[in-house]
């Protein structure tokens, strides 16, 4: 399939992006690369995030969900004349214009059913099914002998998600609103955990993470803070971790709330606001390290091409991924557009996938994280030899 792939909009975007991206001087030394995966749980509607305004099928299938033309009051934000961003994605639009955002459209993981839970499992375990592997592709990409070891990865949140499982030594962090336990009590607890490998590993990882996260600020959340404040503080922490010299180089966070079966216009506007604010917070806290960072934003699958009976959309197939960061060769929409005409839809209802999400992940892992092709084909995404890494995703 790679031979059929072409890049839409790259040329159109260049004059703008070219002004602000001095490609060569920004190349990061090997070993300095940062990689983050942000999982949007619940199936983000790719056709709402990045509407293909040039496709006449869009208005035919989902007129009530299509934003106004670029330039109109509250209209979509133009990318390349064919595609646009949702009006609430202004932060991402700014990144696109400075060449730090690539949009990958009509892409999907190899999973082809429509269950959130199995779909997320497949997205994270790096196979086509929920039972395809018990650990995660990013976890398997890390380890001794790889460019990045498992102990250089951090999960933002209460749990280590499936995608990072399998990488030993992965830590996690989330803001706490409790007073800190005193040192003497912690030491005694640590002794009680000596014979419990799971709890003792968790405790020592937490203590290390606290040291980094509290470097500025005390790592405490304000009681009653809503989901937006929480997401922003997680993204800030992610940036702080990855900016720490000798600290984590890989991070994972997630954001839920994307399952928009009904009344999706209002709901998605708030979701996109939150997403943009989180990414702004990440960029600020990364500081200089933004230049060597690539962030892959993915969701388990897209949603139906047509609006459903309740002003929302149902579970679909292909959708959008974002790749952003100072290390990204952005300012373009990468798509092999399958079209929205009746005969072009997957199973007559969904945007048809033409780019394998694994090709995107492999492109970043190989060129940015320097992971070998053999490891990618056999270990990270088992049996994916026929899926070539997407080239030129990062600035080299």
């Amino acid at each position: 399939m790679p031979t059929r792939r072409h890049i839409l909009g790259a040329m159109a975007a260049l004059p703008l992006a070219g002004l602000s991206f001095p490609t060569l001087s920004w190349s990061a030394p090997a070993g300095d690369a940062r990689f983050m995966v942000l999982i949007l749980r619940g199936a983000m509607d790719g056709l709402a995030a990045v509407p293909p305004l040039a496709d006449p099928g869009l208005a035919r299938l989902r007129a009530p969900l299509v934003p106004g033309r670029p330039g109109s009051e509250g209209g979509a934000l133009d990318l390349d004349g064919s595609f646009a961003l949702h009006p609430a994605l202004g932060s991402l639009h700014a990144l696109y214009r400075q060449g730090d955002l690539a949009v990958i459209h009509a892409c999907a993981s190899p999973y082809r059913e429509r269950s959130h839970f199995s779909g997320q499992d497949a997205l994270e375990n790096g196979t086509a099914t929920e039972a395809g592997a018990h650990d995660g592709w990013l976890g398997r990409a890390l380890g001794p002998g790889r460019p990045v070891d498992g102990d250089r990865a951090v999960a933002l949140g209460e749990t280590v998600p499936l995608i990072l499982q399998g990488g030993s030594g992965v830590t996690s962090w989330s803001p706490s609103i409790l007073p800190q336990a005193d040192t003497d009590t912690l030491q005694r607890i640590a002794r009680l955990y000596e014979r419990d490998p799971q709890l003792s590993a968790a405790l020592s990882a937490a203590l290390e993470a606290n040291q980094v996260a509290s470097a500025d600020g005390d790592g405490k959340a304000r009681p009653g803070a809503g989901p937006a404040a929480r997401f922003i503080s997680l993204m800030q922490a992610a940036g702080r971790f990855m900016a720490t010299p000798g600290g984590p180089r890989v991070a994972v966070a997630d954001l839920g709330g994307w399952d928009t079966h009904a009344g999706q216009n209002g709901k998605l506007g708030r979701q996109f606001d939150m997403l943009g604010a989180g990414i702004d917070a990440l960029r600020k806290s990364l500081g200089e390290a933004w230049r060597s960072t690539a962030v892959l934003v993915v969701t388990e699958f897209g949603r139906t091409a047509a609006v459903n009976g309740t002003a929302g959309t149902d579970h679909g197939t292909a959708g959008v991924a974002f790749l952003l960061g100072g290390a990204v060769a952005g300012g373009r929409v990468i798509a092999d557009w399958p079209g929205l005409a009746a005969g072009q839809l997957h199973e007559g209802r969904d945007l048809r996938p033409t780019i394998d999400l694994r090709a995107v992940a492999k492109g970043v892992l190989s060129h940015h994280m320097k992971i070998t092709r053999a490891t990618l084909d056999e270990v990270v995404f088992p049996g994916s030899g026929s899926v070539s890494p997407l080239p030129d995703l990062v600035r080299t």
Partner: protein
Amino acid sequence: MSLPDARTQAAIATNRFGIGARPGEIAEASGDPRGWLLRQVAAGPSPIPGGARLPTSAEAIARADAQARLDEARARARETKAEPTAMAKAPAAPRYDIYTEEVAARGRSALETDRPFPERLVWFWSNHFSVSVDKAAVRAVAGAMEREAIRPHVLGRFEDMLLAVIHHPAMIFYLDNQLSLGPASPRGEASRRGLNENLGREVMELHTVGVSAGYTQADVTTFAKALTGWTVDRREDAGRRFGTFLFSPDMHEPGPKTIMGRTYPQEGEDQAVAVLQDLARHPATARHIAGKLARHFIADRPPEAAVDALAHTFLDTGGDLTAVARRLVALDVAWSESPDKLKSPNEYIVSAMRGLGVETEEAVIMLRSVSMLGQRPFAAPSPAGWPDTAQDWAAPSAVYQRLEWAARVGQQVGPGLRQPGSLVGEMLGGQARPTLADAVDRAASGAQAVALLLASPEFQWR
């Protein structure tokens, strides 16, 4: 396999099958731990303390609607600066929040029950049929669903519970079925709205046969059509029926439907009832439920033989949950001396409050920490409910927050304790290692003794 000694079995009965030993409970169970559980199975869950004062789901919906109308009238009055109507002028009474009341009632039930095994089954099934108050319409009725559709059936027939849940307004609202119109129904033909597959999909995937049962997208769509018309009565002239289940023929997709190879010729509500009955009795459902029960009570990766045994009992008895509970108690592998289940935040905090003997109303307030530790009541992140394996709850940050919580509880209750050392035996019986008793005895303070006990591996695993 050989069973652990009686004192350890009693601790397992109270902590693994139950929801955490209260003072005296391990002693009570130690004569005959299995018999202690079977007597609870025969008796069923305890009535909820003060449960009669809670509104029915219909009353809750009526109140929530009235509150919404009042809020709207006030907002309009503010916007237009017009003379407010009498209704909008009424003083803003302190808002009665049904959700808060429901969570407190559920907490009292857990803290006070002397039938902790059925109470754990209520938790299990409530999570199996998860709804979330993050959807506004669900907020008033999530607790009512647990009381009305789950609690009465946890030791009854699975089919009855399934039918009660899918008829319940909380599940209908949660999965948008009140919005779903059959495309060829009278209202569907007149409207731009149409089918919503959400409820049909989750019933098959999560509540009954499970995702790998081999059904197709067409089965999901057809089942969703069979469910059209299952809604909640909010008609102005509904009278006493307001807020109850309504089958609306105007919304229902007419005609026979074929789902998973079987054709359903029924008309009206009976059609989806027949599908639900078949799904409830399907072998894949038996297997799916057995797997979840074994994972909850035995191990994150339970032995196949245990799943087989439970599935057989489920299938042979037509989903008799008393028979399944008895079979579970009879499985030797469920009594393994080394615990494999890490407590969820809710289990952790409830068991701490029960074990420390904290007075109920004070403990109800402390149960609010469950949200802080990541498990806000009736707010699981997806219709799949809360996860049920150690790796979901044992991330470093989660483990650390539990320790901080344990230390804070120690500061609150530790100073008043006469003999913190005796708590080890009362709460953990034969499950506590000598090193833990030593550490608690040598603690620098009552506060630290409690913190160590609650943080200990023995207390975190069940």
